[in-house]
């Protein structure tokens, strides 16, 4: 059994076509299953199957499998109640839970040798970060109206510095999109 040597360290992140349907209908429709698609599907399946199997048959007393699930639940629940809102923030709990598990399992799969690290792709991480920040902004305007702009004003700042501080806060709000996506992908790519 031999493994092909890698030409460059970045070769392992190359997206390859595994299966594709190339149909000359509907403006040259091309549907393809790539290796990133396969690994994303595997990670979603692992998340769902683990949650379905580690239920301990709904018994009240937990075993070790369901304790692991309950501790993940408790961790994410404390993040949601502390960061968003103790009562109203629980509405967004399933979304945060799915996002957390999806990114966690993708990162863990990326650590397996000769597998594929899906989160090393800037497209994926930027897609997640931009959509989440855009959705949070839309929800902020929906819930708070124009008071949402008070996010850009730090508490207790002098009135003379206000234009400068608002500009800085606005830039840091926009930079958060980029930094959230860039940090994850850059950490996964990093070769040590």
């Amino acid at each position, binding site marked *: 059994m031999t493994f092909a040597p890698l030409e460059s360290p970045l070769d392992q992140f190359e997206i390859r076509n595994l299966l594709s349907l190339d149909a000359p209908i509907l403006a040259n429709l091309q549907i393809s299953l790539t290796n990133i698609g396969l690994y994303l599907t595997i990670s979603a399946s692992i998340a769902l199957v683990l949650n379905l199997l580690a239920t301990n048959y709904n018994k009240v007393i937990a075993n070790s499998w369901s304790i692991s*699930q309950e501790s993940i639940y408790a961790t994410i629940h404390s993040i949601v109640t502390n960061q968003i809102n103790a009562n109203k923030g629980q509405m967004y709990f399933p979304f945060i839970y799915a996002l957390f*598990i999806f990114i966690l399992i993708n990162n863990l799969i990326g650590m397996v040798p000769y597998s594929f690290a899906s989160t090393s792709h800037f497209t994926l991480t930027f897609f997640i970060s931009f959509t989440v920040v855009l959705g949070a902004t839309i929800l902020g305007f929906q819930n708070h109206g124009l008071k949402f702009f008070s996010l850009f004003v730090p508490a207790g700042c002098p009135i003379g510095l206000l234009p400068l501080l608002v500009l800085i806060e606005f830039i840091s709000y926009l930079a958060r999109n980029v930094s959230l996506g860039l940090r994850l992908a850059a950490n996964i790519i990093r070769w040590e």
Partner: protein
Amino acid sequence: MPQLVPFYFLNQITFAFILLIVMIYIFSKYILPRFVRLFNTRVFITKL
């Protein structure tokens, strides 16, 4: 950088979007309510 070759950008985004939507739906409808029922049961038993 193979991450920056734009040939499969839409493919990745479509896969990620569909899988996230499916995961959120299944989690919120079938998996997470089970946790709430379990914790509710424990609270109920301790209050008996």
